[in-house]
C-alpha cells in the first residue's frame, strides 16, 4: 500500500474521526437527523479540513509554539467564515437549518486535531490528502448516522434534498415506511448518542471479522514456510 492509500484508509476507516477518534462529535450528533443535513455539513467540513490542512502545512515552519494555537484557529476560522458566507449567499435554507453548527466548524475538534496531529508535521500533498480523507470519512459517518436516524425517526430518506440539489431533487425523498408513527427517540438527542454507539459497535464487529481472515492467512503462510 502506498502512502496515499494508507492515508486514505486511515481517514475513511482505521482512524475515522467520528467512529474511532471520537472527534467532531458535536456537529456529527447534532446535524445527523437527516441524510441531507448530514451530507451538507459533511461537505462543508471536508472543504474546511482540506483547506485548513493545506494552509497549516504550508505555514507550519513559520509559526512558533507560543502562538501556534491562535494562528491555527485563526486560519480555520477564516476559512469557515468564508464558507459560511458563501452558504449564506447561495444555500440559504440549508444555511438556516444547519444553524449554529456552521460557525462551530471552527471548533470542530477534528479540524484542529488534524492540523495539530498531521498537517503541522507533514508536507503539503500529504496534508491535503489527509484532509480530504478525513473529511470524507467524517462525511460518510454523518450520512450513515443521518440515514439510520431518519429512517427510524420519520420513516423517510433524503427528505429536503431540494435544499441542496435544487427543486429537481424534490423527488429524491424516499418514504421507507409509510404511515409511520415515528420512533421519536431516533431524531431526538438520545437517538444520536445511541445510534453512534451502535454504529461504533458494528464497526468493531466488522474489524474483528476483517482481522480474523488476515491472521489465518498469516498462519497459512507460516505453515507453508515450514513445509
Amino acid at each position: 500500500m502506498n502512502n496515499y492509500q494508507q492515508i486514505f484508509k486511515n481517514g475513511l476507516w482505521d482512524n475515522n474521526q467520528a467512529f474511532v477518534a471520537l472527534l467532531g462529535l458535536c456537529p456529527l450528533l447534532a446535524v445527523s437527523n437527516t441524510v441531507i443535513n448530514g451530507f451538507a455539513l459533511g461537505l462543508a467540513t471536508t472543504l474546511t479540513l482540506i483547506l485548513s490542512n493545506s494552509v497549516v502545512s504550508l505555514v507550519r515552519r513559520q509559526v512558533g509554539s507560543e502562538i501556534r494555537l491562535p494562528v491555527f484557529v485563526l486560519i480555520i476560522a477564516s476559512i469557515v467564515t468564508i464558507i459560511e458566507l458563501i452558504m449564506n449567499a447561495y444555500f440559504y435554507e440549508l444555511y438556516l437549518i444547519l444553524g449554529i453548527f456552521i460557525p462551530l466548524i471552527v471548533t470542530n475538534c477534528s479540524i484542529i486535531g488534524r492540523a495539530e496531529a498531521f498537517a503541522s508535521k507533514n508536507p503539503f500533498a500529504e496534508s491535503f490528502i489527509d484532509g480530504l480523507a478525513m473529511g470524507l470519512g467524517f462525511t460518510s459517518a454523518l450520512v450513515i448516522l443521518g440515514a439510520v436516524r431518519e429512517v427510524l425517526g420519520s420513516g423517510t430518506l433524503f427528505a429536503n434534498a431540494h435544499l441542496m440539489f435544487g427543486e429537481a431533487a424534490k423527488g429524491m425523498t424516499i418514504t421507507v415506511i409509510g404511515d409511520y408513527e415515528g420512533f421519536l427517540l431516533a431524531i431526538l438527542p438520545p437517538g444520536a448518542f445511541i445510534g453512534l454507539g451502535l454504529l461504533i459497535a458494528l464497526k468493531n464487529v466488522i474489524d474483528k471479522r476483517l482481522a480474523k481472515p488476515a491472521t489465518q492467512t498469516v498462519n497459512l503462510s507460516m505453515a507453508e514456510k515450514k513445509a
Partner: protein
Amino acid sequence: MASNKKLILNAGLVLGLFSFIGIGLVSFTYALTQQQIAENERLFVLKNLRELVPENLHDNDLLADSLQLSDTSIFKNERTVTLYRAFKGEQLVAVIAQVTAPDGYNGSIKLLIAIQENGQLMGVRAVSHHETPGLGDAIDTNKSDWVFAFNGRSLSDPAPAYWRVKRDGGVFDQFTGATITPRAVVKTVLKTLQYYQKHEQTLSQTAAVSHE
C-alpha cells in the same frame, strides 16, 4: 534580552500577518456576498408574507411598509410586534403580524398572522419554532394542514370563550399527544386578533405610521 524582544515582536508580527490575510480574505468574500445575503433574507421574509397575502391583493412593498408596535396589555412579554401592512391604493387590505407565542413546548414559536382588514384571519404560519419533530411540528405546513384551520376565523367565529383546543372545551383540534403547542398557538392567534381590534384605527392610517 534582545532576542527576547525580537521573539515577542515576532509573535505579534506573525499573528498580525495571519490575521491580515485571514480577515482580508473574509472581508473580501463578505463584500462579494453581502448583497446576495441581504437579498436572501428579504426574499425569505417576503416569501412567507406572500403566502399569506397574495401579491394581487395589494400594490405596496410589504417589507417597506412595516412598523413596530408594542402593547403590554395584550402581549405580556415586552417584545414588540412587527407589523407588515398591505395596501391597495390608500386602502388597508390586510395586516401581517409577526408575533411570538412564548409558551410552546420547547420555548417560543414565531408566528406570522395575517388579518384581513375586516378582522378575519387570512392565514397563520409558524416561521420558526423548536417544537418536537413528529409531535409539535404539526404547526408546520410541511407537516400537516393544522394551521389552515384558522383561515377565515375571526373574533366572533367562534366566540372568544371557544378559542381553545377541543380538549379544553374549545373548537380547535389538538394534535394527539401534543396539546401544549396548539394551545400556545391558539392563544397567541386570539391575542393577535384582539390586538388588531384594539389598534385597527391606528393601523389603517397610512400617514401616521408611514415612517416609524
